């Protein structure tokens, strides 16, 4: 059949050529590289359905002679390029310049080499899809906690805030699908609103390669990535179900991806997570459940020349907060600290009562890129975020269902990046950013903790990557940022004039509007920041590399550091920002020696950070109200040093048995007052022994162990307060840290049907150890989680 068809085609072809007869035309041309216009030598050209072929000469030129009138099709091939097919209508002599996409690997690289770093000189750690799956029913912070140098600041067990080298909140940039997250990250109990299940890889950048995203990555960068899909027609997806004995809940996650050979792709993902009250080793943690509903959608087009991506995600988080942590004043806090068990212990329940948090985060972006011949790649992105955070507390009467905090933060950004490669060794990125942000407190019958403000940011950067030779790479960048904050806020006039002396310090903020004991003000700030980054990679041999990073970061104070003013109900403390807080400047040095080898590998990474004007929130005294006394926490600025070392090891014991270990040691010093820094992670180490049998259903069994030592270096902010009931002074121990703990875990996983069906069984806190972690804000009230048995099924289709 096919033979006949071909024969027929050839006959037809001959027929047309015989009719045309007119065969004295020529086609001349030159083939060059799309990027730098350099000539491509030795590319082969073949006219389809003929024996005419040629090869480009030393200057990339070629010529076909004696062409007949009519249509011809030429296939051009070159070793490092994608074949290209072009048709011409021959009716005269033609001269044509043809470009080939010489660096096709670049596009494929993202698909194939998932091991690659975001920048070659960057000091970073990655979490791959399998670990993300492993933590499918936990939070981003829990998954990152497995990396050395990364810890978390928790509120209970569901609100988990990642910390890199002891730094968190505004000091960490979280980049979600190339969008910098703005989800009111300033609060200690504000966890990032990210559904990990929507991502394919998460990078933690500890070093200095962050200028593209901002100048304020004092702590580091967390990059949550999606995946690029190969250009082929396919439809695939997966569904995951998990069940946990602790909290009697789990999650459901499904994703489906359709990709086309043309370059288009689309992905839809949804997840639902639900837990009831969790259990500590000895008691139920009443009101600690959660409910999350998340969805994400991607639509894009990928080709070498151009592409775009549209991304939208919505995260709905509802977190119950331990009932016992709701306290009225400092004496309630003393009672809580002194009692060994939480005040309220009830039967298991799925209900999420007050206090609770309810957060919705919308994130939308559109990104487009185009490559210009002989010039470079231009990327443009617009993104939009809305974060609505509602915190509910125990209230009286009609206000029971009204939150005490209701804030809406809207962020709009545009950014563009131009990447040029003047030669094979040099890559330059030049970019621009514009951002507008607005915070609107919604009426709650309370004075908002964060006032109305508008914030405008602009940034410019240039980053260069230079390959000095085969084994050495250099990276250097500089960035300028401009920020303007305009706030509108009512102050208590006694506080304004007397407590803080603002009437003399900031008379320009006053508007002249006074109502009773309240004064209306318009604080305005302008900041200019310069930041730099330097990176060096030296490959010592095939698997041993040395990385050296230096970074200068500047961080503008966030609104809570400037404007917080009032009772933070969920913390039973009065928090006060100060209008004279200035920016924070950090010099970061980090070195990493990495041996990438399955038999024996390691990463040894010491670091040193000098932070001038480090902004911290510390207890400064007591304020008496009609509700009794409250500790007052004030933001202040000191100079700080943070230094430490992260070590990771892997060793193959035999064919089936591997050992992994890590140690994180850190010291934080308040050099202004010669005190330890508050809330610094304690020394900790992890061990894991893993058995893996590829042949037997990919069976993997691992035992994990984690020890966190007691933090003995903490600033002592303990104080005495009068208990009016007993009329005696009582000691308020808010600083002392809980003792050392060790927990063990067991993980068994297996895959059937060529990996289409995966099972996993985890036992967390195997021995049901009761312990408290000093970086948990609820450590005064209750223990951490007890034993949990977790079962997961994943189906790939």
């Amino acid at each position: 059949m096919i033979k006949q068809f071909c024969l027929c085609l050839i006959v037809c072809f001959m027929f047309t050529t015989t009719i045309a007869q007119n065969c004295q035309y020529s086609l001349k041309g030159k083939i060059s590289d799309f990027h730098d216009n350099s000539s491509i030598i030795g590319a082969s050209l073949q006219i389809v359905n003929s024996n005419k072929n040629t090869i480009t000469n030393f200057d990339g030129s070629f010529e076909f002679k004696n062409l007949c009138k009519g249509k011809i099709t030429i296939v051009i091939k070159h070793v490092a390029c994608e074949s290209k097919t072009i048709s011409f209508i021959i009716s005269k002599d033609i001269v044509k310049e043809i470009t080939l996409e010489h660096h096709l690997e670049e596009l494929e690289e993202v698909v194939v080499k998932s091991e690659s770093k975001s920048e070659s000189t960057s000091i970073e750690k990655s979490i791959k899809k399998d670990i993300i799956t492993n933590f499918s029913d936990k939070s981003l912070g829990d998954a990152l906690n497995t990396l050395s140098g990364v810890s978390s600041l928790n509120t209970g067990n569901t609100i988990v805030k990642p910390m890199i080298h002891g730094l968190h909140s505004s000091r960490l940039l979280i980049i979600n699908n190339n969008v910098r997250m703005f989800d009111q990250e300033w609060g200690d109990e504000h966890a990032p609103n990210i559904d990990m299940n929507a991502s394919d890889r998460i990078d933690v950048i500890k070093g200095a390669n962050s200028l593209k995203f901002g100048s304020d990555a004092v702590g580091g960068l967390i990059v949550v990535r999606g995946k690029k899909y190969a250009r082929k027609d396919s439809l695939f997806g997966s569904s995951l179900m998990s069940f946990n004995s602790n909290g009697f809940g789990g999650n459901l996650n499904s994703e489906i991806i359709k990709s086309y050979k043309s370059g288009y792709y689309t992905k839809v993902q949804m997840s639902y997570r639900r837990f009831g009250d969790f259990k500590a080793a000895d008691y139920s943690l009443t009101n600690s459940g959660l409910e999350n509903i998340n969805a994400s959608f991607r639509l894009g087009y990928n080709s070498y020349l151009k592409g775009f991506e549209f991304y939208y995600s919505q995260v709905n988080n509802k977190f119950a907060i331990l009932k016992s942590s709701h306290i009225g004043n400092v004496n309630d806090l003393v009672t809580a600290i002194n009692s060994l068990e939480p005040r309220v212990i009830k039967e298991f329940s799925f209900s999420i009562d007050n206090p609770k948090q309810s957060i919705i985060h919308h994130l939308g972006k559109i990104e487009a890129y185009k490559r210009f011949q002989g010039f470079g790649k231009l990327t443009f992105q617009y993104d939009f975020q809305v974060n609505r955070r509602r915190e509910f507390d125990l209230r009286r009467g009609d206000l029971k269902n009204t939150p005490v905090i209701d804030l809406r933060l809207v962020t709009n950004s545009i950014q563009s990046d131009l990447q040029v490669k003047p030669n094979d060794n040099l890559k330059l990125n030049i970019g621009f950013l514009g951002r507008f942000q607005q915070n609107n407190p919604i009426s709650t019958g309370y004075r908002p903790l964060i006032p109305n403000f508008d914030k405008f940011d602009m940034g410019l950067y240039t980053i260069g990557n230079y390959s000095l030779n085969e084994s050495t790479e250099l990276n250097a960048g500089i960035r300028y940022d401009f920020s303007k904050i305009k706030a509108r806020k009512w102050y208590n006039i006694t506080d304004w004039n007397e407590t803080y002396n603002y009437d003399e310090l900031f008379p320009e903020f006053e508007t002249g509007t006074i109502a009773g004991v309240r004064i209306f003000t318009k604080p305005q700030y302008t900041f200019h920041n310069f930041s730099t980054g330097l990176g060096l990679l030296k490959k010592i041999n095939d698997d041993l590399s040395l990385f050296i990073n230096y970074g200068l970061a500047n961080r503008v104070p966030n609104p809570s550091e400037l404007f917080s003013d009032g009772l933070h109900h969920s913390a039973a403390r009065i928090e006060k920002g100060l209008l004279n807080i200035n920016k924070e400047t950090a010099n970061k040095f980090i070195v990493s020696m990495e041996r990438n080898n399955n038999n024996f590998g390691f990463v040894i990474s010491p670091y040193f950070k000098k932070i001038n004007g480090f902004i911290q929130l510390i207890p400064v005294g007591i304020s008496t109200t009609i509700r009794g006394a409250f500790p007052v926490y004030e933001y202040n600025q000191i100079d700080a040093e943070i230094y430490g070392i992260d070590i990771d090891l892997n060793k193959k014991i035999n064919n089936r048995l591997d050992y992994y270990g890590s140690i994180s040691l850190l010291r934080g010093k308040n050099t202004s007052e010669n005190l330890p820094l508050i809330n610094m992670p304690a020394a900790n180490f992890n061990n894991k022994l893993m058995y893996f049998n590829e042949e037997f259903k990919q069976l993997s069994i691992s035992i994990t162990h984690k020890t966190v030592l007691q933090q003995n270096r903490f600033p002592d902010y303990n104080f005495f307060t009068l208990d009016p009931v007993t009329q005696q002074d009582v000691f308020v121990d808010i600083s002392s840290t809980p003792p050392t703990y060790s927990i063990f875990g067991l993980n068994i996983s297996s895959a059937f049907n060529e990996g289409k069906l995966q099972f996993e069984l985890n036992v967390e806190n195997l021995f049901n150890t009761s312990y408290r972690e000093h970086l948990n804000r609820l450590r005064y009230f209750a223990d951490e989680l007890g034993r949990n048995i977790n079962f997961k099924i994943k189906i790939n289709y």
Partner: protein
Amino acid sequence: MKTMKTIKLLAVLFISSFVITSCGDDDVIEDPNVEELITTITYTLTNGSDVVTLKYTDLDGEGGSDGTYAISGPFTAGASYTGSIKLENETESPAENITEEIEEEDEEHEFFYTSSLDCTFCSLVIDKTDIDGNGNPVGLETSLFFDTPATDGSITVVLKHEPSKPNDGTSADAGGSTDVEVSFNITVL
């Protein structure tokens, strides 16, 4: 071409968001009313024509100026008083009576009274005389008996929200969160 259009459209949207939002810049935003604020606690103790009031007022809430006390007259030794407590938000006009809210939710609230007197072998007994729907004490109404004179002493009033009821009569056992905690200095002649 289509991408260009989209970019243009987005640029327009972006710029217009600046314009729209910057309009309201010069407006004075409303200072939200603090609705649940308790500014004033008045404990009125009556023995016939002998009326003693213990009052604490903090009109600007937490921060700002300190609260003020207004304590009338000494108590009379050997006398019984009936006490009644009133909570108000005086930043509203007329002042909001919060005692009514507590009466409505009396199962979720309880007052606790403690005292210390600087005298030997003297005591002050404060009894709660009202009960909630479950038959547990509330403490809006009280009776007191001062047995001997004291030159110095104090009465502390604590209001707990969501205490465990019944309890052993102490605020520590009741738990819950504290809505009011005020100590008054008193003398008994």
